């Protein structure tokens, strides 16, 4: 199906999120939409998928102008959207997820749906058991489920929002193959991403959005340098890798075993040294989450010992670790890291040891001004944390770290942040390393893992690899391991 967007405008208050965007996508095309966070990609896709209505502009399908009132309306027109976090119902069965939203009688016929599902799954080479529950699936499988569902509902245009975040490289290969196949069938694929390499590998043509405007377009083969220049308005480099000179041992794990509802991690031993950065790679739910939490005392190991600078802290709570200079920075900043409703000043006061009974407001204000300045936070001492942007929230979290610091554990340090914040945040983290702290972090961005780590641990369904030297490892190798390939027959960890 041919998709045309004609001078789409959308305002949110003062922000011009989409500024006169015109885009033609022939049937059978895989169209890439590139841009940094906040460039207006999501807004444009929400307009096309009926989530929101444009202030002005037209949408044409196969030359016919249409008005899309809602996402359900969009799917009736044949436009389906796969969201970054698939919009499904985790505690329900796959077959029920499939039925939900489809039209039909009061009592849905499960047998027919299961049959349809199996046929479609076979056609696209997916193997998912329709009777299992969604929360037992990986993010990659949940995407597959959503794609099948949208196709089953008759989608001829698929919008995919950052679909390669959080899936393994083998799943990515499979996803791309499916998308190519769908395009070959004449369906239109719209691939939204901020990852250049994905767009290069997959798309027939691409456009770049920046600050709500369409900056430029390009056909295959792409010139990556030009695309980068269009995305950021300038060329950006991450700088050279910095290699640490490891110091004393900070954290030692001795035969640690973990258990959570989904998986078990058995017998991991590891030494982390001062100044070192260790990246934890793996697809979501492979065990790196519990592992990182166990290093902070947020989860109690079922076996083994956790030592901090030689002191056995096994089974002690997080605050005991914190007392020894361990800090854990969660991915969900507003849920676990910061307190919505409180101001920056109040956060800085909270993060410090109480000085007596009454708060010295003047001291708090000075402290806040100083930290806001040194961490380059766009906000005032009286700004509440929820009013800050994601990047500034992350800066605020970093500015709350106390001295002295021996170990920082971070979940997704830069997820959802613009590139400048990414570079800034890592420069601050590397400063901490130079002062003698060690860092362990989880990231689903393999480039980030290799760029900033000294060593890398790969997780695959509870298995943990030997530490890899980041300098000697390529993105491809890492991707293979994350997807479960290239592991030794008998894991000797």
């Amino acid at each position, binding site marked *: 199906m041919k998709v045309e967007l004609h001078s789409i405008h959308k305002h949110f208050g003062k922000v011009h999120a989409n500024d006169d965007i015109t885009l033609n996508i022939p049937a059978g095309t895989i169209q890439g939409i590139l841009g940094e966070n906040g460039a207006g990609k999501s807004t444009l896709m929400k307009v096309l998928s009926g989530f929101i209505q444009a202030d002005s502009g037209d949408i044409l399908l196969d030359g016919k102008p249409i008005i899309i009132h809602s996402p359900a309306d969009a799917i009736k027109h044949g436009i389906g959207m796969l969201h970054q976090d698939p919009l499904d119902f985790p505690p329900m069965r796959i077959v029920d997820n499939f039925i939900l939203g489809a039209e039909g009688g009061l009592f849905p016929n499960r047998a027919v749906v299961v049959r349809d599902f199996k046929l479609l799954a076979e056609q696209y080479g997916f193997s998912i058991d329709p009777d299992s529950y969604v929360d037992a699936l990986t993010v990659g499988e949940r995407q597959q489920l959503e794609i099948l569902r949208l196709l089953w509902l008759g989608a001829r245009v698929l919008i995919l929002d950052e679909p390669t975040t959080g899936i393994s490289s083998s799943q990515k290969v499979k996803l791309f193959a499916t998308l190519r196949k769908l395009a070959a069938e004449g369906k239109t694929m719209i691939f939204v991403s901020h990852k250049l390499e994905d767009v290069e590998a997959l798309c027939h043509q691409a456009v770049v959005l920046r600050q709500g405007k369409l900056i430029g377009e390009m056909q295959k083969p792409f010139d990556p340098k030009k695309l980068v220049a269009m995305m950021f308005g300038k060329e950006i480099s991450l700088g050279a890798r910095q290699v640490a000179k490891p110091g004393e041992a900070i954290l030692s794990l001795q035969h640690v075993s973990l258990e959570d509802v989904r998986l078990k991690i058995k017998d991991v031993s590891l030494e982390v040294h001062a100044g070192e950065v260790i990246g934890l790679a793996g697809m979501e739910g492979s065990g790196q989450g519990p592992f990182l939490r166990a290093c902070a005392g947020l989860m109690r190991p079922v076996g083994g010992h956790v030592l901090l600078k030689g002191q056995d802290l096994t089974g002690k709570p*997080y*605050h005991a670790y*914190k007392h020894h200079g361990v800090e*854990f920075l*969660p991915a969900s900043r*507003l*849920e*676990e*890291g*910061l*307190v*919505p*409703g*409180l101001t920056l000043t*109040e*956060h800085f*006061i*909270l*993060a410090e040891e*109480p*000085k*007596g*009974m*009454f*708060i010295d407001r003047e001291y708090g204000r000075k402290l806040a001004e100083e930290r806001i300045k040194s961490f380059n936070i766009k906000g005032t001492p009286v700004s509440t944390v929820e009013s800050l942007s994601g990047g500034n929230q992350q800066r605020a979290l970093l500015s*709350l770290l106390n001295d002295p610091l021996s170990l920082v554990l971070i979940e997704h340090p830069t997820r959802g942040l613009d590139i400048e914040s990414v570079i800034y945040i890592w420069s601050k983290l590397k400063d901490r390393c130079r002062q003698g702290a060690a860092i362990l972090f989880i990231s689903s961005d393999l480039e980030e893992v290799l760029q900033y780590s000294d060593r890398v641990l790969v997780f695959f369904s509870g298995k943990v690899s030997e530490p890899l030297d980041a300098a000697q490892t390529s993105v491809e190798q890492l991707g293979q391991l994350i997807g479960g390939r290239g592991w030794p027959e008998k894991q000797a960890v």
Partner: protein
Amino acid sequence: MMKNSRLANIGFQLAALVLALLFTTLILVATGAPPLEAYKNIILGSVSSLDKISNVLVTWVPLLLASAGLLITFSAGLWNIGMEGQITLGAIGTTWALRLMQDSSLPPALVIVLSILAGMVMGALWASLAGALKTFGGVNEIFGGLGLNFVATALTLWLIFGPWKRPGVGSMSGTEPFPEALWLPMFPDSRLSPWALVLAVVAIVIVYFMLQGTYFGLRLKAVGKNFRAAYMLGIPTWQYMMISFMLCGALAGAAGAVQVTAVYHRLIPSISSGYGYLGLLVAMLVNYQAAWAAPVALFFAALNIGSIQLPIILKLDSSLSGVLQGMLVLFVLMVEGVRQRLMRRS
């Protein structure tokens, strides 16, 4: 701009008051009662004589104590509905201590002080039960607290008709009154004790400063607004929750102690008189701001006393005051919702 929005805020609050009055008026009209007459009775019933004003203050004291306590638990994000039971246990604790010491040779002033302290301790302990269920058992404090309220009521009845029954046979009028020496000193010809007034005012002032300016207050707020983040920031969260429950319980216990030592001079079946629930309404109405608790509690106390006359003069049930108080809070909540909606629009 600032002034404008403050004016608008007052306007919204007034609108809520008007709506609540309108609702109760409709209810009165529907039952065939003369609304103006009813309101006149409530007002006269609360301020027309020194005696009535002093009765309002007698009600104000436990209500203010309860509200002060609830401001602490609300700051910690907790719905301490178990307040009623905590007041009751405070009364039981005080009665128990008075019974133990009434025949001793201790000076009466000391006996009274120790008994009030005993009530506060009992209130705090009863609150810690709800707190422990919440922090260690995952039981929502609303259900834990409610269950414990009913248990506290049963405990009172059992004591009055069982171990502490009056000589002869137990009755709903309560236990044997204590000798006058063990009463809190009163203003002449009233049930109002200056000491009780002082206790309530000191309590609300302490709570105000605690929540406004101390590390404890700020940390408590952090726990209330985001439990997990507060823990990550290094605040011992479950300890703070337990402390807030126990502080609230202690103030509830003080309210119960005042009911025994100053008002009834004995234990009666419904000694908490609904002050716990009413205190929740007060705390919600002042939007959890300590500064407004005293005047609003005074207003509610006046409504309660004013409506006592209704059954006698107009043959109406005195629960009208409860309807008016509840509707006032409900409309304040709803008007606040409307205000937020308008702000999002603009």
